[in-house]
């Protein structure tokens, strides 16, 4: 069944504003990755988290394994942030594990 529920499915932001994306997991996940898929279709690595919070520039991500969710915060959105954002989680305890993806959030940043 569905293990990763991602929301919202679409989001429009004005330049300079911010918002949060969220993934809820229906089973215990070991780690989460966040990706941006750009207009050429390439998946760009944003974060890998086994726990806690990481920040990189205008992006910040949190993974709470006990409460089974992860968030990606975007602040001061820029036009180049437009694209589709995916969370993906590893379900097993093994250091090598397939990723289960959310359905994605289509982000449009407008002037």
């Amino acid at each position, binding site marked *: 069944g569905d293990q990763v529920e991602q929301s919202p499915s679409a989001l429009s932001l004005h330049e300079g504003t911010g918002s949060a994306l969220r993934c809820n997991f229906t089973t215990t996940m070991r780690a989460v*990755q966040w990706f941006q898929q750009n207009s*050429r*279709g390439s998946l760009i*690595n944003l974060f*890998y988290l086994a726990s806690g919070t990481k920040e990189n520039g205008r992006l910040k991500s949190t993974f709470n394994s006990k409460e089974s969710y992860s968030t990606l915060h975007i602040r001061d959105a820029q036009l180049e942030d437009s694209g589709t954002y995916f969370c993906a989680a590893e379900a097993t305890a093994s250091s*090598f594990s*397939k990723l289960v993806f959310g*359905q994605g959030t289509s982000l449009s940043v407008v002037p």
Partner: protein
Amino acid sequence: NAGVIQTPRHKVTGKGQEATLWCEPISGHSAVFWYRQTIVQGLEFLTYFRNQAPIDDSGMPKERFSAQMPNQSHSTLKIQSTQPQDSAVYLCASSRGYEQYFGPGTRLTVL
């Protein structure tokens, strides 16, 4: 570091023909993963190899699909007797234990 390399980037086949997709992982990465992306199903896991050995093929269709990793520098995904429903972007990823890095994908179109 060239990242994960996938060839061809685009492939068009006629129904019933065979398609072979190639993936070269990042040097030093011991695991190779194959995923498929469609609009309807999103990103789905197909199969993966660790140290060239097949570990999990739970996402592979039981018929017509096969994957090999004959050496540490490349993996292939072969689809026999292609059908229109096989049309998708096929993504390869590599990892050395945790974070996965994706190639640009091969867009397969079956007419």
